[in-house]
Structure formats: structure tokens, C-alpha cells
């Protein structure tokens, strides 16, 4: 079984024109084992 999560998250407006500008950052890597409740990603206050 698989779960796919699709969501909006904050981005840095001042960097909108650049690539990889997202303020939201995934804190996991491909292949990582994760458990319920562990952070997938975080963002900062603007």
C-alpha cells in the first residue's frame, strides 16, 4: 500500500522567480524510513 500526500505550503515570495525557491523544505530524503508523527518538512516565518 502507498500514501500520496499533495499539499500547498509556504514559499518565499522574494525568491519566487528563482528555481528551488520554496521556503518549505523537506527534511527527508528518498529512501528514508519515516514513522507517523516525524517531520516530513518544515518552513520558517517570513
Amino acid at each position, binding site marked *: *500500500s502507498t500514501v500520496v500526500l*499533495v499539499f*500547498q505550503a509556504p514559499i518565499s515570495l522574494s525568491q519566487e522567480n528563482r528555481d528551488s525557491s520554496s521556503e518549505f523544505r523537506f527534511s527527508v530524503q528518498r529512501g528514508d524510513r519515516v514513522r507517523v508523527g516525524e517531520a516530513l518538512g518544515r518552513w520558517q516565518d517570513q
Partner: protein
Amino acid sequence: ASFLKKLHKTTQARSFSNGGGGGSKGDSFLLPGATVATLLMLGALHVRRMYDDRKVEEAQEKGTEFEFQPDVKSTFLRLLPLRSISRCWGLLTSVEIPVSLRPYVYGAWARAFNSNLEEAAFPLDEYASLREFFVRTLKEGSRPIDPDPQCLVSPVDGTVLRFGELRGAGAMIEQVKGFSYSAFSLLGASSFLPLIAKGDVNEESSEPENASREKSKKSWLRVSLASPKVRDPVSACPMKGLFYCVIYLKPGDYHRIHAPADWNVLVRRHFSGRLLPVNERATRTIRNLYVENERVVLEGLWKEGFMALAAVGATNIGSIELSIEPELRTNQARKKLLHSEPPEDRIYEPDGIGRTLKKGDEVAAFNMG
């Protein structure tokens, strides 16, 4: 080899006692010969599978990424009655196991699939069947929820297969290198996925920050409230800051789904599709795997905007049970032969609020069969 020699001696002895006729000798070899050949073939296939899996693991450790490559096996899988097989598997695993055998059966399962039995909420002999054990709850405090208000937590125990930002026309999610599917085909054509028309993208980025933010909010509302028919998902692009994460649950993992954030679930969509396997190999060989399989999509809003979660079933884990809608039944016998039936939608009341979930609340569970 010693087994074959012994078998040969036994059958020779039998053929002599039967008078030594040629036909009799041939007959006596037939059954054990076929059994041995089948066992050898299964053994060889198993060894080859292990070898292939090891090669894939080694390559992944080195950073090699496998490309999409359909094969004959994946075509053959589509011809099998996987839904019936899944339902039979569910019936089989629902059979009550004698109390004395339960710790051995569940212990064997845990060893085979690396489950941590110490986390189980109840003693092993209290789970009447493998199906019940499989969907077990955990002891209080086994899964602490990250308290940071500016983080999104994992909804399941599993392995991260893919993640990233949805960019470009059609909002494509990569299944594996060389093959992608659109977020709309996964979530449904009537999804509120926030997309904007291609032409709006450059215009928006040239505006000052505040105006841009305001326009973004308005645009999202406009897109959300608009009828899906007026939008063209193929030519539209995702609004900035739209992400995805794909997590695979192995058979030994805890199989309950929790809310990744404080979340108002507004719509549930049930796609009664196929039940193809979803393991690592299947993702590389079966086209549109997640889009074709039976799945339940929950869609709603969290404090940062849109959020949808698609729970995709598989052959062995065929049914999905929702804690917020216990009456929903999945993996039901098919009435129609077509696999492309439209999804069954349900809008949760009250309108605009839906079902309110706190970060870490249980949302759903995957069941065997």
C-alpha cells in the same frame, strides 16, 4: 542430489517389484519427477528474485536510478483477477487462529517482515486472526507527534519513494524516472487542486510582493470554487508552493494513517480501480500504477491551503477503512467489468468546515484483502 539418488533407488525398487515393465517405470517417475521439477523451478525463481532485489538495492545505494521499463510480467498481472485474489486473501487471513498458535504465527510474520512486536497495543494472543493483527494499534506514546507548528508530519510508517514540488503544466508527479502521472488523474478530475492558467504565471511574478500574495489568495479561491469543467488541468500550472510526497508501506509496517497537520477534510473520493501490487518493482514496470489502483482520496484545507491524501490499495492490502467515515466499504465485488468508473464522491458536512482533524489524529487504516 542425495534426495534424487534416494528417489531413483526407491522408484527402481518399485519398478522391479512390479515386474520391471518399461511403462510402469515411467509412471512411477512421473509424480515425484514433476514435484521435484516444480520445487526446483520455484527455488530457482526465488533465488533469481533475491538476486535481482539485491542488485536493485546495491544500485540504489550507489545512487543509480532505475528507469521505467514495462515487461511481460506486468502485462500478465493485468489479466489476473487480482480483486478476487485480494478478497480471498482477506477471507483466508480472517480465519481465527487457535490461541496457542497465535504468538508463533504473529512472531513468524514479524520476523519475516521486520515488525516490532513490542509496540503492539495488546498481547499477541488477543489478536484473533492475522488480519486483526495486521491492522493492530500501537501502545500509547509509540509515535510521538512533532509539536513544531511549522512542520508537516508523516501520516504513515513507511519508506519515502518520491517527493518534490509540482511545477509545469498538468502538475505531473513522477512515478519513476521516465514515467509520470498527473495529480488530477490521481486525485480526480473534480479535485480542487489549485492550478492557474499558464498565462497567469509570468504576470503574477512581475507584481510587487503584497499584491502578488493577495492575488494568489484570490486566485486560489477562484480556482477552488470554480466548476472543474471550466478548468483545463493539462494546460494549467500548479500555483506556487504545491508539493507532493509518496510513501510506501511494507507488509511489516504499522498500517494506520494519521493526519499530517490540523486539517479540515471537505471531500472524500473513492476510486474503485484495480488492485495491482505497488512494490518497488511494480512502480518500475507498471504504467499508471497509482492512478489505476483502488484508492480513497481525502481532500480539504489546512492553514497553508490545499491538502489531499490518497491512500492507494494493493493486492494484499486491498481495503481501506476510514475512521472518519466507518460506513465506507472498499474492495467490494465488481458489478462492472470496466476499470475506469467515475469515483464516488462524498462532501462532508457542515459545508465549508467538513471533518476537523488534529495533527496526528487517526484518519484511516489499510486492511488485508
